């Protein structure tokens, strides 16, 4: 199997006070938990990842080290890092991550000036759970 064509999904928000290593780690966890990165696939090497994201290689060492400790990836000495989708970890790791991601999203939306109700309606609209009048109405311009 070839190496993962990452990190299209990994974007570091330079404005965020969430440290870069934490942002990268979350993005990788999400990719793994969502199934986009399949079990057993090889990750980019430390150097490749650092170059791609233009981050200090020490940051990637930290990210991979922590992901390995948390059981999301494993390393074969001299060969690289691979996705490890341990079902037990799956159910244990994901509620906590889900909470993190949700909080992150909510705080960003609130910063943009949206109310909790608007956020809820937007989520409903995007996930098609069909709360009436959720779509379009509050999109965008009513925040000034």
């Amino acid at each position, binding site marked *: 199997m070839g190496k993962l064509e990452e990190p299209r999904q990994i974007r*570091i928000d*330079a*404005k*965020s*006070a969430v*440290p*870069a290593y934490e942002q990268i780690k979350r993005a990788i966890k999400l990719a793994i938990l969502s199934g986009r990165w399949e079990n057993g696939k090889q990750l980019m090497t*430390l*150097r490749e990842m*650092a*170059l791609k*994201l*233009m*981050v*200090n*290689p*020490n*940051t990637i060492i930290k990210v991979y080290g922590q992901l390995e400790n948390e059981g999301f990836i494993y390393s074969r000495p001299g060969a690289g890092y691979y996705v490890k989708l341990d079902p037990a970890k799956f159910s244990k790791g994901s509620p906590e991550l889900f909470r993190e991601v949700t909080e992150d999203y909510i705080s960003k939306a609130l*910063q943009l000036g949206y109310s909790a109700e608007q956020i809820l309606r937007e989520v409903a609209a995007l996930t098609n759970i069909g709360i009436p009048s959720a779509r379009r109405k509050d999109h965008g311009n009513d925040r000034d």
Partner: protein
Amino acid sequence: MIEIRGVSFSYGKTGVFRDFSLSIPEGQVCLVTGINGVGKSTLLRLMAGVLRPDKGKIRYDPKLGADPRRKIGFVSDALSLYESLTIAEAIGFHKSVYGLSSFDDSLVQHTKIGCRQKVRELSIGQRTIFHLNLILSLEPAVLLVDEIIHSIDAYLRKVFLEQIVQLLSKRRLTVVMVNVNFHDIEHLIERVILLKSGEIAVDENIEDLKSKVKKIVARNRPDSLNVLSQIDYSEHSEFFVYPFDNRLRGTIEGDIFDLNLTEIVSAFIGGEYA
């Protein structure tokens, strides 16, 4: 490791540093910033051994050997020695001076610099890349990067920075950069040192710095916080504060925003011009 201890330095009667101390551990990537004329480049030249302190000492890791200057790469616009030589001649000269048996000129090749071109014919960007290539052939343990990378184009700047990331992933390399423009080096930096009137005004690791500097948008000045600078609008003002403490969230009137490194440094520097 570079240890600057009690250093004083002046250009004639113009004092730059007085009893200045700073220690940079091995393998750290540091950014030195501050307003123009604050002494950033002077500090770099002192570290490089190009300038000698009037007082005090600069010590290097014993691993750098008896002649530490050889293991310190100073990237600046200092190719004057080679002006009239061609690239091939300059490489030959460099090899003989430093007793190198081989020379990896892949960086030069990469940037389409011809071997028969004279050094003086190169653009500033090409000169910088060529200079970096010469420096890297000596396998430096410390890389000092002056503001020169501001004057090179976006492509060569990328080549330059990629080269640094490559090196950092291969071995321990201490990097000190002087810079006022950070968008593409933001995530390479581990520590930020801000100079003010010849002294260290801020010395924080990047993560702490980001959590401690915030923008607060409010009508009134937050009097429980130290305001670095502010921008006033008709209905509200933006207050740049440091140090912010997360526990204060909730007690502050107004909205609190995170900042990127460029904004953070502008907030500090803006305060000095106010």
